């Protein structure tokens, strides 16, 4: 290696190969992804572009570097199969007998098939037949396809109708951060894409599904510790305006618990950036079933799986909700 051109060629070849591998090919494969259909019944297109206001929120998210503390990538370690009963059938005694047999199998081989309720509860429910109430519901969980198929077959033999439900699992999903792993399609309409590299704060891939109330997010941005006890998040007070109440209080003013309230005659109003950011956070949900990330949604939840579903306003899941009602 005593020639300049030789070194140049070596470096050129090395960088060109990596350029083709990690710039060109991903662009040909991921960069050309198109909208796809969701898996399962009632297929819709996925993903749907974010509404304009939420898209502005993405710019606020980028400008303030939210991605340095929050990832938007849910991982999954595998999938399990739930054996769900959809119809009890006409011969309920036979169905219950088959279920009890499965329960017995789950005590013998807990690694292969597991009962989703304690065995005593299943037996007690079986005796007064409440086991068959509230269908469809998942009763057993299996780690192997063969065992799950055998269980479904045994149940279907009794005039009952059973199904396999695909259930992604993993620590992230167990935390309630999502229903399935994040895939490249989830970011199709975002730019800049910020999947994040740190979990100083929780994963936000599905924060809109967990916390669909924009007012909750506004108060959380203004005073994080008020909404989440012990949070380490810094407040983003600069996105809000603290001002003197003019003729009448603004309907958008944040509603605080008494001990945190601003001095009388003052109110805290979210600025445009805060409102856009809250709209973006509410819009963040990547939980539609896809063919490359399959899962079966329980029937109750299957109705609102579209990314763009309007946030259910006033869904009460926090202690601060009452405090967030519009100002009087």
């Amino acid at each position: 290696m005593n020639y300049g051109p030789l070194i140049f060629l070596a470096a050129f070849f090395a960088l060109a190969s990596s350029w083709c591998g990690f710039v060109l090919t991903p662009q040909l494969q991921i960069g050309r992804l198109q909208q796809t259909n969701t898996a399962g019944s009632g297929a819709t297109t996925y993903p749907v572009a974010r509404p304009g206001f939420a898209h502005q929120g993405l710019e606020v998210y980028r400008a303030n570097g939210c991605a340095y503390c929050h990832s938007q990538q849910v991982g999954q370690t595998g999938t399990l199969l739930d054996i769900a009963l959809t119809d009890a059938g006409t011969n309920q005694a036979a169905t219950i007998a088959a279920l009890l047999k499965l329960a017995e199998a789950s005590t013998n081989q807990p690694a292969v098939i597991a009962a989703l309720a304690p065995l005593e509860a299943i037996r007690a429910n079986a005796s007064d037949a409440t086991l068959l109430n509230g269908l469809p519901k998942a009763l057993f969980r299996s780690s192997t396809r063969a065992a799950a198929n055998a269980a479904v077959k045994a149940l279907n033999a009794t005039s009952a109708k059973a199904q396999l439900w695909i259930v992604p699992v993993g620590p992230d999903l167990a935390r309630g951060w999502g229903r399935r792993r994040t895939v490249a399609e989830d970011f199709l309409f975002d730019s800049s894409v910020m999947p994040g590299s740190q979990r100083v704060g929780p994963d936000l891939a599905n924060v809109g599904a967990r916390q669909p109330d924009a007012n909750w997010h506004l108060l959380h941005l203004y005073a994080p510790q008020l909404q989440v006890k012990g949070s380490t998040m810094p407040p983003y007070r600069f996105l809000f305006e603290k001002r003197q109440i003019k003729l009448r209080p603004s309907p958008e003013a944040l509603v605080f618990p008494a001990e945190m309230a601003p001095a009388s005659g003052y109110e805290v109003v979210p600025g445009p950036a805060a409102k856009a950011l809250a709209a973006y956070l509410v819009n963040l949900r990547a939980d539609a079933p896809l063919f490359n990330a399959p899962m079966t949604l329980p029937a109750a939840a299957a109705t609102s799986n579209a990314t763009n579903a309007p946030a259910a306003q006033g869904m009460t899941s926090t202690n601060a909700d009452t405090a967030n009602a519009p100002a009087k």
Partner: protein
Amino acid sequence: MSVMSSPSQPSPAGTGGLVPAPIRPAAIDLSCRLPLVVLFLSAGMWLLAASAFGLIASIKFHAPGFLADCAWLTYGRVRPAGSDALLYGFSMQAGLGVALWMLARLGRTTLAAPWLVIDGALCWNLGVAAGLFGILTGGSTGFENLEMPAYAAVLIFLGYLMIAVWGAITFHRRRERQLFVSQWFLFAALFWFPWIYSTANLLLLGFRVRGMAQAVIAWWYSDNLLVVWLGLVGLAAIFYFVPKLTSRELHSRYLALLTFWMLILFGSWGGIPASAPVPAWIPVLSAVATVLGVVTIIAVALNVRGTLQGKCSKLMGHPSLQFIGFGLIAFIVSGAASAATAFAGVNQITQFTWFTVARDFLNSYGFFSMVIFGAIYYIVPQLIGLEFPSSKLVRVHFWTAATGTLLFVVPLAVGGIAQGLKLQQANIPFTDVARGTLPFLRASTLGDLLIGLGHLMFLANLGGLVIGFYQARAVSAWVEATTEIKPAEARP
């Protein structure tokens, strides 16, 4: 120079007879003096900015409300501002200075067009300043290590070209045809950056690609900058200074060749996290390449060990060697940590934790910046012909920087692993996981403080030397200009 083959050897290039006589080191240093002083001094200034921003970001883990009312100083802006000031302001700028000097000295020729290099340095610094301003005002691009907005990127790109072109011309004009290993690394580094920087900026900010392809390209860029570019320049300095300062021959040219090939072939394929939500072949290929990076580390370690003939205590002999020795160890440890975290099982725990921050800092600061400090402490007295005002401060800087780096890296690595293990247990509430990292983060603030203190010492010493030198020259020029002409001399 013991590292060079003897100039009397017949040159394998066959042009030995046509090559003009080598230029004396003193003349080479004179040609490098002003551009390098500009590069090193401005790099030192950015160090202070990086420390200040890093400290602000760190304090936010003691008190989340600290400076919270100021949009410019929110965590998500000061953190990238600090890391970019360190990376583009100090590491790359000072690295370029060291590279130019090594190219000139190894080629036994003067630096080509020193004034244009100074212009390049000014352009580069303008770009860094504009970029930091952009980040602090909310113009960040959102891609890690590429946060500077497009207008700053243009300046940085032009500044780099103006410096690197003259580096390449200096290399071309060399009067010593036999190439030393460091020259391979430096020549490859010179054009590596323009390629990756233009690709990343064009595809991420200009003609934007869609969806996750953006993230893949951003990861590719980060890896090529932090692993390959910093690796090429840092290893060039290690291969140059370790033999030179210990007065030995480099142990093996072939091991160095292996290092070179492994670094450019496999280093450039790393960087995609195993958990990335992209088609599986991308992270898998990246993991394989990262694990193969172990060969690079082993080859470097064997080569240095052979050069020192097993007497590693020799690295403590010279202040510059202390820095370079520390950098070498950090290179080995961070490379090993990268290879370990490339495995899916380990990555499952370390991903999204402070461990990755500790690992990357050990590479970019513990390895690269420390090696560059060592090189600057050797080069600047050569350029100016004076010793540093306080050689004691150089040693104190070493111990401060080494302790600071350890105090930063070790708590974050340990805290990161604890954080990762807790994240695996879904029954531990997330708030508890986050609060569990706070003691470690707060301990690392101490590391930040020590590192910042070291930067002050570095700048004081460097500034003192340069100011002292130019003051003396100005004084002597003034004295010369104002000396009364004695009547005896005026008489014809």
